[in-house]
């Protein structure tokens, strides 16, 4: 009987329902306000890609595949390769997405990942150079959400980083006679990862901040905040796209939480990579 009443309350007054829980410093799924959902990482899930990873954050599932191709560099930065992230939110992952060209959220997520790559210098673009001015590597990073249950950015960043660590690029030599590039598929080298950016997202409820929101919490909350830190505790992104206001003190708390999250993720990722 009480269960049906609670379910009805949740349907009719979802925000009030949440507030009752938040007042007791917990959430309907049993987590406290600063607790992440269980994170699982699987590396090398796609054998046909040059690097791939599958990340689960509670129900949220994201897969990232990286494909390396040759490209001609631009004239003004002739020794730099490209990293092109693309986040796809297909109708499969949630009823809120329609088929067709990428929606606003997918575009914003793609731009966010691109910004973090640029800000953190995760891979030196010069490392992707094969022959100065002639050929460079372009890494197409396709990030596809399979199940959307909130906190897309954290899952995408995690999948992207894990997939990047999994990338093996073949050695390329230039045939002096023909002038063509020859790919030696037997000899492959991993990328040098300079920085390890990890994202931590929060949602704002009135004056409270809640970490790792589910889709339901994201809908009810009045604003979101994503902090990306690297292993030197430098901030690579403090992304707050509008929404309700936050004080400096609250922001400081969020940064501290993001730092501990960075350690958790790094530990997990190191463990997974060792086991592969």
């Amino acid at each position, binding site marked *: 009987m009480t269960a049906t009443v609670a379910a009805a309350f949740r349907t009719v007054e979802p925000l009030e329902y949440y507030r009752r829980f938040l007042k007791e410093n917990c959430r309907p799924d049993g987590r406290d306000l600063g607790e992440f959902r269980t994170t699982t990482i699987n590396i090398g899930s796609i054998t046909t890609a040059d690097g791939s990873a599958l990340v689960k954050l509670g129900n949220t599932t994201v897969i990232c595949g990286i494909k390396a191709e040759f490209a001609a560099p631009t004239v003004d930065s002739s020794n730099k390769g490209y990293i092109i992230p693309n986040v796809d939110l297909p109708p499969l992952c949630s009823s809120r997405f329609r088929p067709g060209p990428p929606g*606003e959220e997918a575009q*914003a997520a793609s731009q966010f990942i691109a910004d973090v790559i640029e800000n953190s210098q995760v891979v030196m673009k010069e490392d992707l150079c094969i022959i100065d001015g002639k050929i460079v590597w372009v890494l197409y990073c396709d990030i596809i959400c399979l199940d959307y249950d909130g906190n897309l950015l954290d899952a995408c960043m995690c999948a992207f980083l894990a997939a990047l660590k999994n990338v093996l690029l073949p050695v390329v030599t230039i045939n002096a006679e023909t002038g063509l590039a020859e790919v030696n598929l037997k000899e492959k080298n991993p990328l040098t990862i300079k920085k390890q950016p990890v994202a931590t997202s929060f949602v704002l409820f009135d004056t409270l901040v809640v970490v790792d929101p589910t889709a339901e919490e994201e809908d009810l909350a009045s*604003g979101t905040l994503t902090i990306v830190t690297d292993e030197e505790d430098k901030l*690579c992104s403090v992304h*707050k796209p*509008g*929404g309700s206001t936050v004080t400096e003190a609250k922001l400081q708390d969020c940064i501290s939480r993001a730092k501990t999250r960075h350690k958790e993720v790094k530990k997990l990722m190191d463990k997974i990579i060792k086991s592969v």
Partner: protein
Amino acid sequence: MESAQRRFDSGDLPALRRIVCEQGPLSRPDGSVSWMQGDTSVLAGVYGPTEVKVSKEIYDKATLEVLLRPKVGLPGVYEKSREQMIKKTCEAVILGNLHPRSSITVVLQVITDAGSLLSSCLNATCMGLVDAGLPMSSLFCGVTCALDADGNILLDPTMKQEKDAPAVLTFAIDSIEKKILLSNLKGACSEEQLQQCIATAQRAAETIFRFYRDAACRKYSKW
């Protein structure tokens, strides 16, 4: 190309560039503003509250739409992400519940980009909303800070300063409690630097809010 830019004297702060704001340059929109911050210039037009497409109708509040047009070419992913940020900032301050089932559209046209574009867009949007007479819970303003290689804070950087800086931070700050509505970081910085930039931005915001007030006063005062 950039002219030697006169800067606003804001006391002990690194100074803002000169601000010029023309209210109501366009006749068709309900509110329009031409905003210049140094050589950066943005034109904003605000339509609303007007009719809304049924598919976009929200039963208990106004539907907000922000369109950002670049100087040349079509808007891309970069513009879309900026649009979304500006939209969410506006949503936090506009009293949308007063205009249910209607639409508010903000159109921003970049005329010149000479640095601090996002903050100029935010300022133009806020003045545009004021010019359109839309009810808001507070005003907001955008402030861009650049950190140079020595860690000095530069307010309202020019394009060149932005390019040379290891980190560029943009904040939107509300007028009542001076809290942070929007934050965006390009480059990397430390925690202390972030806090310093926030404090600087909050003080610079007071200068901008004073400018808003003066501009509105000038528009509505009669001889």
